[in-house]
C-alpha cells in the first residue's frame, strides 16, 4: 500500500512541476506579396499593360522553399489575361499578361495566393486606368487635381498646365504630363497664351515670364508691380494686350508682350480684372473681379463707363459677334446684342454651392462649353441653344486642351478631402 501511495505522490509532484508559460506572440508565417508593376498606371482601354505583369511573393521568415500558387483573375474592366494560374519560381516571381478591357475606367487584376496545401494566403490587386472615348473617366487623387491653369496652342498642338506651382507639358497621350523644368519655373500660379502662340506664366510673387518657343525656354518680363510680391489677375485680349490687376493697386496693361506697363483709369482700380474683351469697334468690355463691375472703355482703358444692369453680375463674355453675355448670380446667363444697353435672359442653372465665375466660357473649334461650378457643364454651338452636357455638382474647374479633351477638377478642403480629375475625349 505504501508503494502505491509513493507512486501517487510522485505523480502529483510531477504535475506540480508544470509551469504556465509566459505570455508571448510568435510569428509562425510571414509573407509579403505585391505586383512589381506600378499601381494606377494609365493606358488606353484595350491596351496591354506593359510588357508583362510581374508578381512576387517573399517569405520574410525564411528563404523561399516552396512555391506559392498564384491565381490571376480580372476583377473589373473586362480585360483578359494570358496566364491565370501559376507558381512562383525560386525567387518568388511569377508572370502573366494583362490586356485592358473597356467595361470600366478603373480596371483591376487580382492575384490570389495559396500555399501548396491549398491554404488561402492573400489577395493583391493591381489597378490600371483605361482611358476611353466619349465617357467621363474619373481619376481619384491624381497629381493634377490642383491644376491652376492651362494654356492650349491649337496651332502647334501643345498644351501646358500649371499644377502645384510647377509647369507641365502634355505628352504623346492626353493623360500624360511631363514636367518642364527651368530657372524660373517654380511657384507658378497661372498660364495663358496670346494669338502669336506665345505662352506667359505668372508666379505667386507677381513675376511674369514669357516663352516664344512653345515652353522650351522662358524670359523674364518687366514686373508689372515692381514692389509687389503678390499674385496677379491676368487676362489677354485678342489684340495680344496683357491686362493685370492686383489688390488695391492700379490696373495695368501691356501692349508689348510685357515689356512696359500702362496704368488704366482709376474707375476700375478697386475692382481689378475678371475678364476683358476687345470688341470689333476697338472698345473694351471689362468685368472686375467683384460683383456688379461691368465697364466699357473707348480710349484704351484710360477712362471707363459703367454699364448698368438690373442684376448682380459676376462675369462677362463676348463672342465673335460682339454679343455680350453676363453671368448673374447664382449662375444665370443674360445676353446683350446692343453693347449692354439691354440684356435678355438666356439660361439658368442651380449650382449646389457658390464659387467665383471667371473664365467660365470655354471655346473650341465647334463648341462652347460653359462651366458651372457646383452644377456641371453646359454645351452650346451658338450660345442660343444650350445642352446640359454634364451635371456634376462636384465640378470646380474646367479646362480644354489643344485636342479638345475636357479636363475637369474637383477638390475640397473638407474631410474626407476628396480630389478628383475627370477626363473626357470626344470622338467628334
Amino acid at each position: 500500500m505504501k508503494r502505491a501511495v509513493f507512486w501517487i505522490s510522485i505523480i502529483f509532484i510531477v504535475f506540480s512541476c508544470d509551469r504556465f508559460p509566459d505570455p508571448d506572440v510568435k510569428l509562425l508565417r510571414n509573407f509579403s506579396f505585391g505586383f512589381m508593376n506600378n499601381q494606377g498606371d494609365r493606358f488606353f482601354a484595350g491596351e496591354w499593360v506593359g510588357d508583362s505583369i510581374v508578381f512576387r511573393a517573399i517569405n520574410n521568415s525564411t528563404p523561399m522553399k516552396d512555391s506559392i500558387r498564384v491565381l490571376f483573375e480580372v476583377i473589373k474592366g473586362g480585360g483578359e489575361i494570358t496566364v491565370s494560374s501559376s507558381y512562383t519560381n525560386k525567387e518568388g516571381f511569377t508572370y502573366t499578361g494583362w490586356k485592358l478591357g473597356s467595361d470600366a475606367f478603373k480596371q483591376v487584376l487580382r492575384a490570389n495566393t495559396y500555399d501548396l496545401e491549398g491554404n488561402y494566403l492573400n489577395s493583391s490587386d493591381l489597378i490600371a486606368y483605361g482611358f476611353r472615348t466619349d465617357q467621363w473617366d474619373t481619376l481619384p487623387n491624381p497629381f493634377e487635381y490642383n491644376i491652376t491653369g492651362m494654356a492650349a496652342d491649337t496651332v502647334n498642338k501643345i498644351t501646358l498646365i500649371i499644377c502645384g506651382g510647377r509647369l507641365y507639358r502634355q505628352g504623346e497621350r492626353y493623360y500624360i504630363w511631363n514636367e518642364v523644368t527651368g530657372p524660373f519655373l517654380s511657384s507658378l500660379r497661372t498660364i495663358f497664351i496670346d494669338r502669336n502662340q506665345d505662352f506667359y506664366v505668372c508666379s505667386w510673387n507677381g513675376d511674369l515670364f514669357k516663352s516664344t518657343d512653345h515652353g522650351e525656354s522662358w524670359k523674364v518680363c518687366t514686373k508689372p508691380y515692381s514692389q509687389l510680391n503678390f499674385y496677379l489677375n491676368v487676362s489677354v485680349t485678342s489684340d495680344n494686350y496683357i491686362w493685370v490687376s492686383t489688390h488695391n493697386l492700379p490696373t495695368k496693361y501691356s501692349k508689348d508682350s510685357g515689356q512696359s506697363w500702362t496704368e488704366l483709369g482709376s474707375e476700375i482700380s478697386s475692382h481689378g480684372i475678371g475678364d476683358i474683351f476687345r470688341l470689333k469697334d476697338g472698345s473694351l468690355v471689362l468685368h472686375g473681379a467683384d460683383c456688379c463691375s461691368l465697364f466699357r472703355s473707348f480710349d484704351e482703358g484710360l477712362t471707363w463707363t459703367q454699364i448698368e444692369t438690373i442684376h448682380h453680375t459676376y462675369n462677362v463674355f463676348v463672342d465673335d459677334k460682339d454679343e455680350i453675355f453676363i453671368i448673374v448670380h447664382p449662375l444665370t446667363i443674360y445676353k446683350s446684342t446692343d453693347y449692354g444697353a439691354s440684356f435678355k435672359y438666356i439660361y439658368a442653372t442651380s449650382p449646389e454651392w457658390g464659387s467665383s465665375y471667371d473664365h467660365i466660357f470655354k471655346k473650341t473649334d465647334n463648341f462652347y462649353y460653359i462651366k458651372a461650378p457646383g452644377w456641371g457643364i453646359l454645351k452650346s454651338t451658338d450660345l442660343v441653344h444650350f445642352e446640359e452636357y454634364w451635371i456634376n455638382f462636384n465640378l470646380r474647374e474646367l479646362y480644354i486642351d489643344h485636342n479638345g479633351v475636357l479636363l475637369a477638377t474637383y477638390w475640397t478642403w473638407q474631410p474626407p478631402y476628396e480630389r478628383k480629375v475627370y477626363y473626357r475625349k470626344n470622338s467628334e
Partner: protein
Amino acid sequence: MKLLYFLTCVVLVIFSNSVTYSQRISIGIYDGVNYSDIHRQDIGGKWSPKPGPVVGFNFGYSFNKSIGVETGIGFSSVYYEHKTYSYPYYPSPLYSSMLPVYLQSSNGTMNFSFVRIPFLFKVSVPSTLSFNMRAGIFYSSSQNYSLNTPYYYPGFPENPKKSDFGYMFSSGISYPLSDKYKASFDVSYLTGRNKFLENYNYRHGSSEFTLGVTYTGFHKDAEINSKDELDFSNNKVSVIVRGGINYSWNKASAEVGKYYGYTGLMAGFSVNFPFGQGAYFQTGFSFDRKGYSIKDSSSSFYRLILDKNQIYYVDTRIQIDYAIIPALLNFPLGNSQHLFFSTGPWLGFKLNSRTVGTAYNEYHSETSYLLRETIVYDDLERLIKGYDLGWIFGIHLSIPVIRNHNIEMALQYSSSFRDVFDTSGFVKNQNPYDPVLSIRNRTISLVLGYKIPLADRKE
C-alpha cells in the same frame, strides 16, 4: 496551483502515522519561503510567482488532541513581478471595450514587507506524523514597500495602504523530535481582502512553505486528557484524505460555439460524523480546480465572442481554483455498509483564476500574410466571482483493504447555482458580438480517498 499539488502529496504520505500525545499550549518558530500570488488584477499578462522570505513565531492552544487555535506573529517579504507581452488583450472584453489594447513587453515589480498576526482554527489528526489543517484570518501591516511599475499604470506612483486583512488556509505535518519538541512542515495560502492601491483592485496574496520547531513541554497539567478527544474510532468520527480528478465544463445558457470540458485535480480531506443506521454527515475542505476550455474562433481568449474586428482561433483553458467546503448527507444503499449515496450543498471560495493556452490569428492584407501564435496567460480574477455555490450528488464506495485500512472511491456530480463571471462592474452588453451567456460550473469528480486508520493509534 502548486499548492494544490503539494498539499495532495503531503496528505498522501501521512498514513504511515502513529499516535502521539498533545499538550494544550505550544510555542514554535518557523522559517521558509513564500511565493507571491497577487489577486484581482485589472489587465492581462502574468504576475509571476516570486520567492521571498518568511519567518515567525506561533502560539497554540489545543482544546483536545484534534482541535485548537493558533496565533503568532510573522514577518514576510512579498515580491510581485508582472510580465506583459505585446499581444492584444481586451481589458474587460465581457462587456466594455470592443477594441483590443496592444500591450508592449514590459516588466514591473512591487515589493512589500509585512508583519502579520494570524488567528487560526486548527484541526489535527493525531498520529506519530501528525496531520494539521488550519483556517482563519490574519491582520497584516506593511513595513516597507517599493513600486517599480510598468509604464501603462498611469496612476502610479501612489502610496499603498499600510494595513490589510485577509484569509489564511494552512495544512502540514509535524513529527515529534522528543517529548517536548516537534518539527513541522506547513503549506499556507494567504489572500488579502483589501485593495492596497487606491486606483487598482490588487489584493495581496501568497503561498508559503515553512519548516518549524514547536515546543510543547510546558507543564504536565497541560497534557490533554483522553476524555477531551473526539472519538475517532472506526464507528464514529473519521477523517479521510482525498485526492482526485475533476472533469469540469460550463453550463452555458445557450448553445453558442465550441465550449469543451476541462480536467483538473482536487485534493483535501473530509470529516465524517455518523448519526445512525450507517448514515453520516460529511464536511471538510478541498482544493478544486474547475473550469472549461474553448476551441473555436473568438476575439476573447476566455469566452466566445465573434467580434469580426479581431478573430482568433482560440485553444485555451479557463482555470478557476476554489477552496471547497461541502455539507453532505451520506446514506447507505440497501443493507450495504460499503456503498453510499451522498447529496448536499457546497460552498467554494475562489482562490485563483486564469486563462492559459494558445490562440492563432491569421492576418490577410493586400500585401502580406501573417500567422501568429499567441501564448495566452491572463489572470481573470477580476472577472470571476469570489465564491460559488452549488449542489453535489454522488455515490461513494468504502472498501476495506487490509485490517482497518479503508480505501474510499467516490463519483460525484456537482452543479452550480451562479454565473461564474462577475458582471457587476461592467456595463452590460456593450460588445454587440458577445452573446452574453451565463456560464455555470458543472463538475464530475472521480475521487480516491484513504480513511486514516485511527484504530492503530496507541491509547
